């Protein structure tokens, strides 16, 4: 491997760690909810603190349990969203591309402010 190969690898890894740190800093402890979007339009918003199972237009079904969201059924052939791990952090999402369905976790009211400047 040439020296510039190593530099390239390290730069990309550093960028990844940086983005990850920004995401971790943005994650909030407050009340969270999951927003369901179909074709870019909001289908519904559900609180993560309430265990429930919700069907989306007969194409997908997801479960909220112990503050995490998991897609447990989809009618698409690839099943990528079903194999997706459960999500719970602010900004995380499960996407079913064939059905254009997006489940996205968002920090609740306490996370509306990015920061406070005094």
């Amino acid at each position: 491997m040439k020296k510039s190969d190593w530099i390239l690898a390290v730069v990309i890894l550093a960028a990844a760690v940086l983005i990850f740190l920004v995401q971790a800093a943005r994650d909030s402890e407050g009340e969270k909810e999951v927003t369901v979007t179909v074709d870019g339009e909001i289908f519904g918003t559900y609180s993560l603190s309430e265990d429930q199972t919700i069907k989306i237009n007969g194409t997908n079904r997801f479960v909220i349990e112990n503050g995490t969201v998991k897609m447990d059924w989809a009618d698409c052939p690839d099943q990528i969203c079903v194999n997706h791990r459960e999500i719970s952090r602010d900004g995380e999402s499960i996407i079913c591309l064939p059905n254009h369905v997006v489940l996205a976790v968002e920090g609740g009211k306490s996370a509306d402010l990015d920061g406070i400047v005094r």
Partner: protein
Amino acid sequence: MSCLQLKGEKALTWTASCARKGNRLKNRAAYFGVFTAFALILSYVEMLIPFHFGIPGVKLGLANLIIVIVLYKTDWREALLLSVVRVVLAGFIFGNLFSILYSLAGGILSLAVMVFLKKKERFGIAGVSIAGGVSHNIGQLVVAMLVVETYQVGYYLPVLLISGVITGLLIGILSGEVLRRIRHIQLT
């Protein structure tokens, strides 16, 4: 210019060069068939490995091995053609129209980046392959964003960057080894 239309005094010399051209074309077609078959086998092997990391897009990208080899052994035109042929065939056999769309976006962006970096000559095969792996993931991510119309898809960008570096490095080392062993074979 077609070889069949030549008449007159120059005909004799032209036929000789036309025959050579024909042989080269036959060679190219034969090698291209072998590469296509190999790429499809690698796509199949990749599909057999039950590897669900829980984050879509994290995978080995074994078929990229043959793309890198062809890129170094012949030129970018062959690599582009092979990339497109592989994605379309593998898509019809193992996937669906969606997987073709994402793979094409990733594959073409990845190849463009690799061709660019290879021309720079500052990078070795490992660096070129790493850039290819990472840009493949970025290309698929961009298409995913366009399809579902949300930016949230980008949340897993760090994971995809890291996995792109690791798989790109592996593919780069592997193809370097393969190229060293087939260096006596002339493809062009």
